[in-house]
């Protein structure tokens, strides 16, 4: 399979605390990969290392942009550069721009694909206006796909919870990523919303050709969505494989349920 992301021996220290220890992970093209593990296992730290919020202490994060045969090393880059390269993420606790409209939130995602500078903004020349109009239309198209178009002019803070989660995905999609990183997209959702999300994520993969790496606690969702699953515990990778393999993996069961005591 053609890879899009390859993480090798990723390590992260916070002072004396070893948050990640030699974690390997890879995502293939058009693949949905889940990263699971108990609370505090280092999943979000892993995301933060990939997206440039932290600079990993050791290891390599390689991406394989389309049309280029050589991989690109992205660790140590600023978050905005990583996004420009084509990795977009959502956050575990929703981080929308609450006092901007839904459309504007998505248009912020378009920011790094737009060029207008100060002069362009003041003079409003032809190219700036065209770019602006295209951004509005593109953003609206994305909102339609996600099913948020009725809320276009609503403030993001006034949206229902499930819609806010979906808006985060829409905003990330607006950056034109080839890999979407979702940090607990189903957290706090009811079963209906989770089912919709399941469908939405599959649709993003199939229709947009975006590969997906997600952190999730909802096992039903993980098992139904993922092509492959990686399990981390105490910052170390303890298992990887298809949902079936993971379900029966003794190390995973031990990490989640504790050791069996009966002899």
């Amino acid at each position, binding site marked *: 399979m053609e890879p899009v992301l390859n993480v090798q021996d990723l390590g992260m220290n916070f002072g004396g605390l070893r948050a990640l220890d030699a974690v390997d992970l890879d995502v293939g093209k058009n693949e949905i990969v889940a990263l699971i593990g108990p609370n505090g296992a280092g999943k979000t730290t892993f995301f933060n290392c990939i997206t440039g919020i932290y600079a990993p202490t050791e290891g390599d994060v390689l991406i394989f942009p389309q049309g280029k045969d050589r991989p690109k090393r992205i660790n140590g880059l600023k978050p905005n550069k990583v996004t420009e390269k084509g990795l977009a993420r959502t*956050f575990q606790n929703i*981080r929308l721009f*609450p*006092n901007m409209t839904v459309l504007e939130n998505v248009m912020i995602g378009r*920011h790094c694909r737009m060029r207008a500078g100060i002069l362009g903004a003041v003079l409003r020349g032809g190219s700036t206006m065209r770019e602006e109009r295209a951004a509005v*239309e593109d953003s609206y198209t994305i909102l339609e796909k996600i099913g948020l178009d009725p809320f276009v002019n609503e403030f993001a803070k006034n949206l229902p919870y499930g819609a806010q989660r979906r808006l985060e995905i829409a905003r990330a999609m607006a950056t034109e990523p080839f890999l979407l990183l979702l940090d607990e997209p189903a957290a706090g959702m009811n079963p209906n919303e989770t089912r919709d999300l399941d469908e939405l994520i599959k649709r993003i993969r199939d229709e947009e050709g975006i590969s997906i790496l997600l952190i999730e606690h909802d096992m039903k969702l993980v098992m139904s969505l993922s092509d492959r699953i990686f399990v981390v515990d105490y910052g170390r990778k303890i298992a990887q494989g298809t949902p079936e393999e993971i379900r029966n993996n003794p190390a995973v069961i031990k990490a989640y349920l504790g050791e069996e005591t009966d002899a």
Partner: protein
Amino acid sequence: MFLTFPIMVIRVNPVEHIVEWRWRNMLLIGVGSFLLSFVWHYFIRRKELGVQKAEGGGDESIPLIQRILTKKAVYRPTLAVIGILILVFPFLFSLYQTNIMISALIYIMLGLGLNIVVGLAGLLDLGYVAFYAVGAYAYALLNYHFGLSFWMVLPIGAALGATFGILLGFPVLRLRGDYLAIVTLGFGEIIRIVLENWNEFSFGPSGIANIPRPSLFGIDLSVHAATIYIYFIMIGLCLFTIFVVNRLQDSRIGRAWIALREDETACQAMGIDKAKTKLTAFALGATWAGMSGVVFAAKTTFVNPASFTIWESIIILCVVVLGGMGSILGVIAGALVLILMPEYLRAFSEFRMLAFGVLLVVMMVFRPGGLIPNVRRTYKFEGVTEPKKG
């Protein structure tokens, strides 16, 4: 009532060694505080009702001013009347009035500049007056040493303001909130103290006098004519500022500023260069301060460091907060209220700070969004995406 008892009711008369009991005062305070609390509760009730209405949705939640702005039939004539008023103002009223208006206009410009930094980008800048001082001293010194004219210094002042904005911006890139406020406050004071103590450069606390007023095509004008001239220059500059800020607000850069204000981490994760966005905000904000500084020096014909104290920064900040963060109309209204009111209420000048404080507290309780809160642009989609689907 009981708290004020010792001061208001008991008065010890030291000459006659008796204690006077002023029961009438107690009654007045009682009635007064009763009425005040009644009014207070009335407004709180009204506010709560308003909130409920807004949550229920509907047209009534749209503020009056917004409705005026969206209706072209009302909007056009209103604008025309205001325009004519602005044009005839200096000929109708005395020189004194025109002068007051000029300072109000200067504050509008300063407010709009600071609005970029505080209102849009959410960077609390308490040293904004430093850029104002840079502009004013740029004109004073360049004119003194090289005889440069007002019109030549105006762009130089703007450029110098922007440069200092970036100079301040670099060290504070990593800071936010309270820390940023403290550093900018320090920066403002540094500029003032340098101007005060570096005698060879800025002539110290005695300042620089005899700065020429702007001339019209090389003709020197009388004081009266020059004031009217400055008035129109300021009107022009304000319109220019409004034009530019308005366009910036609804652009890629403006949106990036607002996103930065809303959530820095998310903003960066969405591909916005945090450092660049912050620096442009500081630079563009400072540009207007630099320009208005030049006009200020030309208007007063005298600059000294005493005009650029921390109080000025705070007043400009109040203009923005009172008017409505991020709202251009709000800032204009805020500047007019805060600068004109004290001038026309000179009789009560002793109570100025008190009134100021009360005004701010009342505003924060009843209209936390400012006099004229900012309203985000809305888009209409009817058939926009239809052709794309097919």
